[in-house]
């Protein structure tokens, strides 16, 4: 599987992502520069976490206008697979590749702690190594992860099974009004969504930071294992 990681000015989780992808694919991902205007041959593009453009104005807003995003959109139109994590998710929504927006966390503070995610569908290349209802742990680290969208979009996402992950308690209970599990206050406790064609996934928590027992566990690894299985040509 050939992977590429987009680096914007201010991106800071590209190395974490590269380690995770290298681990499962056995090959180093290509680092793509925000000013690049052509893409190499790739099976998966990842928009990693960080503070592109300092998260100034709105998280992801300025990165969404980078030259490379034209190529990423064309890649998406060709049916390419894209994963956006944290700031990458914010960029995908700002670029219009995924619906909704990420607002300031409900508690108005940056949050950096482990959360639990319930897998809402196993019918995607990103979640196929889990069963629907599985719960896994993932670190999160963001100030603006409070997922919001209008009511029609929400109905559409829910109706089409396009919510990939929800924040849950360790026991798997989802309660959007519970600040202890739905840490940032996201609508319907949504932590990750999928595009209509099932090929673009955005999520706030960081599965790439939990792929090695030494770093505290391998809860995030199924996502990458699933992608390898789905995308290896």
């Amino acid at each position: 599987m050939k992977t590429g990681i987009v680096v914007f000015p201010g991106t800071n989780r590209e190395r974490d992502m590269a380690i995770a992808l290298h681990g499962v694919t056995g090959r180093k991902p290509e680092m793509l520069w925000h000013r690049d205007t052509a893409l190499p041959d790739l099976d998966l593009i990842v928009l990693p976490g960080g503070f592109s453009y300092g998260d100034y104005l709105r998280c992801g807003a300025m990165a969404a206008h980078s030259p490379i995003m034209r190529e990423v959109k064309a890649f998406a139109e060709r049916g390419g697979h894209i994963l956006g994590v944290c700031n990458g998710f914010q960029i995908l929504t700002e670029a219009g590749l995924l619906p909704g927006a990420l607002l300031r966390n409900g508690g108005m503070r940056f949050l950096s702690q482990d959360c639990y995610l319930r897998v809402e569908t196993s019918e995607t290349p990103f979640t196929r190594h889990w069963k629907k209802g599985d719960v896994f742990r993932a670190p999160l680290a963001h100030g603006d992860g409070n997922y919001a969208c209008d009511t029609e979009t929400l109905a559409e996402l829910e109706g089409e099974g396009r919510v990939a992950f929800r924040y849950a308690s360790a026991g798997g209970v989802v309660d959007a009004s519970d600040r202890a599990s739905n840490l940032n206050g996201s609508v319907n406790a949504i932590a990750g969504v999928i595009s209509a064609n099932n090929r673009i996934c955005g999520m706030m928590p960081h599965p790439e930071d939990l792929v090695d027992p030494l770093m505290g566990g391998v809860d995030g690894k199924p996502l990458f294992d699933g992608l390898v299985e789905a995308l290896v040509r």
Partner: protein
Amino acid sequence: MKVRVTVSLKEGVLDPQGKAIGHALHVLDFPEVREVRVGKVIELDLDEADAARAQERAIEMAKGLLANQVIEDFRTEIVQ
């Protein structure tokens, strides 16, 4: 020409920052506060002498970058 672009959350979009400030103001003994909404003001100093043209360009900037129209409204005004 200076143009001010004011960006605010659309009505109906929950404003976590406004809510937090409202709460803090209550704690600080301002019980009269009913609602708080927080927005951004972006003051643009443009190398453009024509007011109409400046405003037009500011609107383009707002649509293109300054406001996220999924959640935000904006308005522009010439300041000087």
